[in-house]
């Protein structure tokens, strides 16, 4: 997009509106894929109800119990997959923002968006290990 060795600059208003559109599209795709998995899981649950439908099924992380999710059958793993896609969607949105600011070398906002990403990483560590 930008010329090689372009000087540091900031996102113009047309850059920002393009970023807006791409963020909107990304959110739409993420939530759409997630909804498909969640609906599929619900259908599976209705067709062949899992033994203990309202347990946590050992969901997941360091307390990951793949056997627990497997024992729940297709309903549980479909829903679990959908939930992970859903949670990944805002993270993808932050990654896209980092990349956009990086391309325009708007370094203070590269820092801001990277910090948000880092904090989400802290969430993962806290959830999985603490």
């Amino acid at each position, binding site marked *: 997009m930008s010329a090689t060795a372009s000087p540091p600059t900031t996102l113009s208003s047309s850059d*920002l509106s393009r*970023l*807006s*559109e791409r*963020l*909107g*599209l990304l*959110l*739409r795709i*993420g*939530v759409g894929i*997630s*909804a498909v998995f*969640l*609906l599929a*899981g*619900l259908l599976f*649950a*209705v067709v062949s*109800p*899992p033994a203990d*439908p*309202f*347990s*946590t*099924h050992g*969901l*997941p*992380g*360091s*307390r990951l119990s793949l056997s627990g999710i497997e024992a*729940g059958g297709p*309903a*549980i793993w479909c*829903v*679990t997959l*959908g*939930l992970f896609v*859903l*949670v990944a*969607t*805002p*993270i993808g*949105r932050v990654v896209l*923002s980092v990349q956009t600011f990086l391309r325009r070398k708007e370094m*203070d*906002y590269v820092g*801001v*968006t990277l*910090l*948000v990403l880092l*904090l*989400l990483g*802290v*969430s*993962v560590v*806290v*959830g*999985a290990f*603490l």
Partner: protein
Amino acid sequence: MLLILILLSLLLIAAGAGVLGALLGLGGGLVIVPALVLIYNVDVHLAIATSLISVIATSAGSASRYAQQGLIHLRLGFLLEVATVIGGLCGAVLTSSVLVGPAGTDVLFVIFAGVTTSAALLLIRDLRAGKIHAPPHDPLADRWRLNATMPATGSAPERSFEVGHVKAGMGLSFVAGISSGLLGIGGGLYKVPAMNGVMGVPMKMASSTSSMMIGVTATAGALVFLLQGDVVPLLTAPVAVGTLTGTLLGTRLHTSVSSARIRLLFVIVMLAAALLMLLHGLGVTNA
């Protein structure tokens, strides 16, 4: 058969919360948590985790629309997100690690009642809100290039505005984040007044920007709950799908429905929920 009924009713309640949330620029969490706890007898921690995940769906559904309309103040959103995400993380850790056991649950109920009541009061104040005064010039807004232009909407022409009180906005965003992780709500009820009332951002832009921010705020908390195993898949799925459907419906209704009456109804529902949660927390009623 019973399972189908439970799933369907969850879907419907969540859809209703989604419509209300989208109409009022709030997540549906203030309805979903009390509904799960009081109607379905779900443990309050699991209800909070479920609601947080539905907030992500609400955010993605509504923000994608507002983003394409150019109504989101991206730089401001990204900057305030630092504070809301730190808050969201702190709130989730408090809920999942400190406020456990019966005593912690009681404390959560009481906090929830307090926050819901204050939100209801804010909405009542909004009903007769006067003009927003432009905030004083803030060098931080220059530093972070926050002064922006509100695109033309409806009959209102395009207009540029200055953002003020950046530090106060960051502080309120942190509080919004804590409330999100602690109670499973989006936190829009603090972010919207912070941006609109304190920082001088036009209302439509404030609520649109908030709808983008609540997704990442809720994600900070949701990751903690999800990875700690505090999520019930078959409880979360219908609630997430329901709120998403409701949100999509609500953003479409947004232009055609007068929100004053809905707002009043919402206030009544919230006050009732707050009262029930308070009685629950104080041990007056048992579940």
